[in-house]
């Protein structure tokens, strides 16, 4: 068998397998790939995953078919011709240049596509730190308003909803500045709404992972990590801690719900009234909270100028005068 027909066989097998594999993936597996369609980021992240998958599958099949063919045919057994030797076996300019060009193209295309997807989808639900660079329209304004105590939300308008996620060892709680700054231990969201998550932590690094929402943001102590989601479907979702945070890390999960706008409004007003007594004791809504010597949330170290902090009080007179 000559060289050409051998290559033709391999390529034919590869094309057939790749096309079948890609079609199967796209139509059978793809629609079921998590995280689903609960938010726009979930939808686009699923789409990205599938795009990468159908790009990756032909690569995988190429290597596997090549390996398989080599093991079966180019093997030390009677009747197999002597191995290729000499310069042809050492290098082939065409193959090398082709390989480098194709891999570079694919890789750079993947990076460009990833960037477009990331920016177009407003950070894809990932935590963007205290100053998000890719935000949905109105989200930053809503978030700034929340700090000033002017957050509002109503089922009729189209405002983004600001929710603060506070992680601590080993639970998540959520504050709703639009509803009097109430704090709940259950995450409830309205559908068809841009949600701004302000993720922070009281102790160690946690990670807020709302799985079906496709939101993941590290909860760092003393840092506000902002992520966005645009809810599209009602239903239940899972919240897990995704960064090792100590011995009960494995048990740090709960679930949340996306409700219709009116149902959410009803829940929120009811809960706000129920929690009013507790809310009165909470510190004012802020990006971060630092528990001081009096215990969690008893007071604030300065983030802004809430309480002036004097190191001299803490460290005594050993400080040199400025």
């Amino acid at each position: 068998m000559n060289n050409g027909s051998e290559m033709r066989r391999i390529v034919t097998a590869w094309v057939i397998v790749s096309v079948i594999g890609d079609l199967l993936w796209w139509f059978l597996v793809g629609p079921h790939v998590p995280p689903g369609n609960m938010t726009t980021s979930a939808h686009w992240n699923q789409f990205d995953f599938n795009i990468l998958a159908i790009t990756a599958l032909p690569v995988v099949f190429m290597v596997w078919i090549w390996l398989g063919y080599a093991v079966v045919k180019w093997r030390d057994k009677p009747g197999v011709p002597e191995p290729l030797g000499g310069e042809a076996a050492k290098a082939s300019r065409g193959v090398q240049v082709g390989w480098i060009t194709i891999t570079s193209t694919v890789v750079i295309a993947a990076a460009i596509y990833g960037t477009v997807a990331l920016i177009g989808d407003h950070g894809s639900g990932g935590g963007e730190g205290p100053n998000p660079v890719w935000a949905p329209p109105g989200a930053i304004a809503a978030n700034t308003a929340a700090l000033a105590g002017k957050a509002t939300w109503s089922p009729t308008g189209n405002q983004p909803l600001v929710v603060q996620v506070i992680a601590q060892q080993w639970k998540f709680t959520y504050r709703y500045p639009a509803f009097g700054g109430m704090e709940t231990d259950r995450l409830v969201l309205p559908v068809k709404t841009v949600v701004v998550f302000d993720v922070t932590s009281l102790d160690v690094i946690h990670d807020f992972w709302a799985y079906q929402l496709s939101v993941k943001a590290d909860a760092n102590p003393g840092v506000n990590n902002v992520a966005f989601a645009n809810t599209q479907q009602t239903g239940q979702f899972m919240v897990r801690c995704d960064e090792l945070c100590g011995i009960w890390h494995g048990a740090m999960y709960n679930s949340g719900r996306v409700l219709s706008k009116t149902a959410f409004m009803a829940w929120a007003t009811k809960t706000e009234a129920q929690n009013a007594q507790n809310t009165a004791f909470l510190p004012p809504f802020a990006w971060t909270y630092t528990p001081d010597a009096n215990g969690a949330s008893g007071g604030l170290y300065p983030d802004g100028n809430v309480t002036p902090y004097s190191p001299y009080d803490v460290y005594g007179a050993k400080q040199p005068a400025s």
Partner: protein
Amino acid sequence: MTDTYKDSLTAPNETPEEREYEFRAHIGAIWTGGRLAIGMATFLYASEAFAYFYLRTSNNSNLWRLPGQLAPLYYGWTVLICLLLMAGLANYGHRRLKKGYTNDFLVAGWTGVAAGLIALFFQIWELVVLPFYPGSSGYASTFIGFVVMNIMTIVFATYWMETTTTRAMRLRKELGGTNPELSSAYPARSFRANVASMSYYMGFVAIVSIMFFLMFYVA
């Protein structure tokens, strides 16, 4: 395990050419090793500098540095001057050695070692007289980190200088004659390569000390 030593203990049957070839590799290794040591130390200090600038720019809880907080300046000056002196002496000694003044090298070497020891003493003692607590600010923390790193560097640099100096003295005893350090005997050539690498490394120490002095005591 099979015994790989049975027949080979006595002689590798080296020809003079082979010996010279390996010896040149050895000299090259000293050259490469000295530069690589600088590369490693660069990464070490670079990560310290990274910590300094990272904490400085993030200024968490407004606690990069308390007002008026400064490490003991005179200690800083002393350490800096001693290290610069040491580096200068290493370079001076190396140049004099190349010109054939081997006694100058010895004097420079021992003075440099003394300077290194003084720097070491003051660098350690500085920790005792610090006017701030280690955890009082980001500046205080990075300063402590820098001091520990600097202690390691001073110990290493002084050790290197001391061993090259004692090595020069041993060479005199071993090889005899006038200026045996400058002969073409293997130990002497290896010694000279070592001195060259050492004085190079000292140059690096000098640059780093100035940079970090500026960072911690001036800026």
